[in-house]
């Protein structure tokens, strides 16, 4: 005991020197901590697209401790007070990254658990260094900074990180040297010795014991080795998976991290490469929408054709079977069972797409429709080199930054505005077609430098010629044209010789469509429901894009998307059934839209492919997973003779994104808001009126809220007669003065500040204020009489005024206290007595 005591004494001896040195040096320790935090921020931002987040988090972690240390420098009293709970402040600041990490996780931008833990250490180190007053605190801060910096160096690879690391190393070594020399030179080094081993080893033993106990509890006897690895979740391979983990095996997301080179990340699971698992678009459409009913085989009498024609038919048959989907039926049975989640699949993604989502990635087009089934020319893939067809543009090889790009040489249309970049990773889709966004113009695949590798299918889709499918893990870099449809709204784009609105469109009208594939219109000559409705919906509109938009608008607003609705198998016209039923899946919306637009004379075709959903986008990598249930059907409209514009008739799916100038974007938003406002004019008017009233009466409202809160608290405390009641009333006055713009300066006493307005207040209010002041002063500054304890009745009577009985309640006093407006007026009148001495 005596030894301990003497140790305490010797340790307590040099606090003054310690304080001075701490104040002088803690800037250095803090600078090291900031440097370490900056290194961590750089390391964290390396794998992220949004670097500003990490930079902002770095600032948010480093600036408040710095401000606190600066603030404390000049305030010794506050510093002394803070010392008693400095450890708590450090702990609280160290815990801050946890809610931030949770919030980021919920926003899809999470990070690995170990990164959150190291940011906790970083924060604790920053705060420790900021509050450092003696050597122990400083060294703790430096230790945390050193650990943080070491971790950052292990986690990152960029040049700025290494530069910062070099600076940190120099600073760290310098501080260690300086610390050593200070100790050698300090006279107290010889005067006082401190035996600190028992305390520190005790802490170490306790920590080790706690870790062992937790490990035993969490992992069991056999799992200790696993548990001791650190409890950090991995991305898979051990039964659990964390999507933000930095390590692990077997995860599809991790697998496709290779953005430029598909082989950058090697194969990890053999089943991924089983060819049989790769579905085609046809398979997925059937899984999603159900199989088309098989028509009964009818044998009818026939006459043999000549040999040439037979051969042609066989050719066509062979070609159709070659490809994935040769037709698309609008009449289907319900799926036998919902597509079951593929639990053993590392990732359910078919494709990964990087680019502006939502996006329509077309794979196949169909242009003939018989009321039940869409058919198209399938299977023929022309390579660019061989393509002599006039309708498909030429593809040629260009080199850009040393990389080969296959560029589609196409005509320019007024709707195009620049280009956007896309990346498509083929994961689990068996097709040779390129899942391309609208208006692709160039394709780059690593080391693919022969233009004849890319070609066109018969239906006008891009495909790799001469291949049955694109190899797995291939990374396709695409460029597509941005577009803006505004020019279409102002012109008749249907090309020379196109039918005008005055002329009823003829069935099978393909005049003026150049070399586009057949554009079969309504199946019969009679006026169909689709045609009638189309003309009804577009009555009064000029021919052109406005008609298209009118039909789209009507379909998207008046019809309901219902993925389970089916048309009867025996129906002859699926579109008519859909239009009467008012609900259906996306392919019926698309079929109806295409048919109706054809009735109006537009050239349309059905596009099938994938709809990349924004909610599947991983903001960290920028990639959007495209899964089997993203199979989608939409419509393309021909414009200007050579280009097709994708339109989206199904509600719930975003139309392909147009590129807008800032002005157009603002105008469109304003128009949309204006329409909403106009539709709910009454509600908005009431709301605006309420807001206006609230604004005008904001002081009154705020006062009412604060006052009632304080009254409530005071009432709870002894019916408004206790210390709390009086002080709450005083707080209310302080709050009102602040709202009135006359906040009491902290060095001015209550009675000086409020006493000066007494003469200009109404007698009643002035009296109430003075009585409140007197009471508050007594409760604040009078020494309680011990015999009466906390609720002294005698003094209370004095405090609340001698003129009224003891039971006077502050609540009654409150009603007469001056309000915000009165206070403002009174303070103004008393603030400038020199200006008008007469008043």
């Amino acid at each position, binding site marked *: 005991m005596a030894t301990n005591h003497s140790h305490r004494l010797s340790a307590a001896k040099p606090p003054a020197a310690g304080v001075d040195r701490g104040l002088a040096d803690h800037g250095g320790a803090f600078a090291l901590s900031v440097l370490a935090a900056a290194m961590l921020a750089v390391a964290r931002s390396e794998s992220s697209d949004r670097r500003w987040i990490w930079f902002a988090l770095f600032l948010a972690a480093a600036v408040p401790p710095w401000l606190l240390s600066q603030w404390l420098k000049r305030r010794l*009293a506050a510093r002394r007070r803070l010392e008693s709970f400095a450890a708590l402040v450090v702990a609280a600041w160290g815990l801050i990254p946890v809610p931030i990490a949770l919030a980021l996780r919920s926003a899809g931008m999470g990070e690995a658990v170990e990164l959150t833990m190291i940011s906790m250490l970083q924060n604790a180190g920053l705060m420790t260094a900021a509050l450092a007053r003696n050597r122990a605190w400083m060294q703790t801060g430096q230790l945390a900074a050193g650990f943080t910096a070491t971790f950052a160096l292990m986690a990152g690879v960029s040049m700025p990180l290494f530069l910062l690391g070099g600076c940190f190393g120099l600073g760290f070594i310098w501080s260690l040297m300086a610390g050593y020399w200070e100790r050698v030179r300090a006279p107290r080094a010889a005067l006082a010795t401190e035996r600190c081993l028992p305390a520190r080893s005790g802490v170490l033993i306790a920590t080790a014991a706690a870790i062992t106990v937790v490990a035993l509890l969490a992992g069991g006897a056999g799992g200790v080795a696993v548990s001791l690895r650190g409890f950090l979740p991995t991305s898979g391979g051990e039964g659990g998976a964390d999507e933000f983990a930095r390590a692990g095996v077997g995860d599809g997301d991790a697998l496709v991290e290779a953005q430029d080179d598909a082989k950058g990340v090697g194969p990890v699971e053999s089943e991924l490469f089983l060819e049989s698992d790769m579905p085609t678009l046809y398979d997925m459409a059937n899984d999603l929408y159900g199989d088309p009913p098989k028509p009964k085989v009818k044998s009818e009498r026939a006459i043999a054709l000549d040999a040439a024609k037979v051969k042609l038919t066989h050719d066509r048959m062979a070609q159709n079977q070659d490809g994935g989907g040769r037709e698309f039926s609008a009449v289907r049975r319900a799926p036998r069972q919902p597509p079951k989640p593929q639990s053993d699949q590392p990732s359910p993604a078919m494709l990964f797409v990087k680019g502006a989502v939502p996006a329509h990635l077309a794979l196949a087009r169909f242009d003939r429709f018989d009321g039940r089934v869409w058919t198209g020319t399938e299977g023929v893939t022309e390579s660019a080199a061989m393509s002599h067809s006039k309708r498909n543009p030429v593809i040629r090889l260009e080199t850009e930054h040393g990389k080969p790009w296959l560029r589609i040489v196409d005509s320019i249309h007024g709707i195009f505005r620049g280009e956007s970049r896309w990346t498509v990773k083929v994961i689990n889709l068996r097709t040779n077609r390129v899942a391309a966004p609208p208006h692709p113009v160039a394709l780059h695949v690593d080391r693919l430098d022969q233009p004849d590798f890319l070609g066109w299918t018969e239906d006008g889709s891009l495909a790799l010629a001469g291949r049955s499918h694109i190899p797995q893990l291939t990374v396709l870099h695409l460029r597509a044209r941005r577009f803006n449809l505004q020019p279409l709204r102002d012109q008749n784009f249907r090309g020379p010789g196109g039918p005008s609105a005055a002329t009823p469109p003829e069935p099978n009208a393909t005049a003026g469509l150049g070399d586009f594939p057949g554009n079969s219109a309504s199946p019969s000559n009679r006026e169909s429901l689709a045609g009638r409705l189309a003309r009804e919906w577009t009555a009064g509109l000029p021919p052109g894009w406005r008609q298209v938009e009118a039909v789209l608008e009507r379909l998207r607003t008046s019809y309901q998307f219902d993925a389970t609705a089916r048309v009867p198998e025996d129906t002859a016209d699926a579109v008519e059934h859909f239009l009467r039923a008012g609900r259906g899946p996306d392919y019926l919306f698309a079929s109806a839209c295409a048919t109706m637009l054809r009735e109006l004379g537009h050239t349309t075709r059905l596009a099938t492919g994938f709809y990349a959903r924004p909610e599947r986008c991983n903001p960290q990598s920028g990639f959007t997973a495209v899964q089997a249930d993203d199979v989608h059907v939409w419509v393309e409209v021909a414009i200007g003779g050579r280009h097709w514009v994708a339109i989206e008739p199904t509600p719930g799916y975003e139309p392909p994104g147009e590129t807008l100038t800032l002005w157009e974007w603002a105008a469109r938003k304003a128009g949309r808001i204006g329409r909403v406002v106009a539709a709910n004019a009454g509600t908005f008017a009431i709301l605006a009126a309420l807001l206006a009233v609230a604004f005008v009466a904001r002081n009154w409202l705020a006062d009412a809220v604060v006052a009632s809160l304080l009254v409530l608290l005071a009432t709870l405390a002894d019916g408004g007669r206790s210390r709390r009641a009086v002080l709450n009333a*005083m707080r209310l006055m302080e709050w009102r003065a602040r709202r009135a713009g006359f906040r009491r*300066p*902290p060095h001015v006493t*209550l*009675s000086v500040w409020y006493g000066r307005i007494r003469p200009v207040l109404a007698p009643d209010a002035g009296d109430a204020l003075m009585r409140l002041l007197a009471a508050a*002063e007594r409760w604040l*500054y009078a020494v309680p009489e011990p015999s009466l304890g906390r609720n002294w009745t005698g003094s209370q009577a004095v405090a609340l005024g001698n003129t009224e009985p003891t039971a006077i309640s502050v609540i009654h006093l409150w009603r007469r206290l001056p309000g915000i407006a009165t206070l403002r007026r009174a303070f103004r009148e008393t603030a400038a007595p020199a200006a008008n001495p007469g008043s």
Partner: protein
Amino acid sequence: MSVSDTVSHRGPAPLASTKTLGGAGHGPVCEHQESIDGLRAALNRTLIGKESTVEMVLACLLARGHLLFDDLPGLGKTTLAKALAHAVGGRFARVQCTPDLLPGDVTGFNLFNQRTREFEFREGPVFSDVLLADEINRATPRTQSALFEAMAERQVTIDGRTYGLSGTFFVIATQNPVESHGAYPLPEAQLDRFAMKLRIGYPDPRSELAMLAANVGGNGQPAPPPAAILDPRRLDALQQHVANVPVSLPVQQYLVDLAAATRGHRAVTLGLSPRGLLAWQRVAQARAHLQGRDFVLPDDVQAVAGPVLEVRLAGEFEAAPRIIAEILSSVKVPVF
């Protein structure tokens, strides 16, 4: 609003000081209230238009402090001191300090009595209840220090023998800041013995008019001194009563913070001593009592800060009010 404004705004306490804020009484009426009111009235009659100065003088008296008047000649320093001496009753003595004044002239000396063949002690002016030391900075340091033992310890030692002074011994010293020739400025250590330093200043025109009117028809003799309102015994009881005015912890903490601020102010070469801090608390207690309160407010601390600090903070004479205002505004008033 600067602190000096706020302090002066409170201004002098109203004559009927039992009611302060809006008539709400702050405490029970003290038994000595009548005496205090009488003193206040007598002094205000003597020094017209200087209620705040009178209030400070009373606070200093009740706090058992000594008072230093630092002002130009002819402003009523001596008049006020004499009036006070007469009003509190007891013996009054006056020393006109000059460079040839010896310590024995102040404290008294042993005189050899030829008849009895013994030394007998002749009491000096310090053996009084109120001592007026006029132009104290003209006395030599040796004489000054003889006086300061009397002030600090209320006793004098002559030829190895210690004589006790009156329990209510109260020194009013005056000094003239403009005539520095042949003067011995009081050292900081000795200034600390005074509870406060006051400046009377010129009266306002209205008070001067009243003064002139009162003087018409006079016979050139000074006005008769006021009648004694107290006696030393009652004054002692009153001083003891004031010393018992409780000071709450927040207010004491406020005093400590203010003291720390004086030590940290860059324009102050010598901050407040613990003795000065004690004096400040006593004067604040006295001021609270003069205001009819039975507890001390931060207002009291602020109100007496000027006179209390001015006597002990070493620095420029002219800058003192500004420095004190800065010190007061750098410390937060304890509220809530």
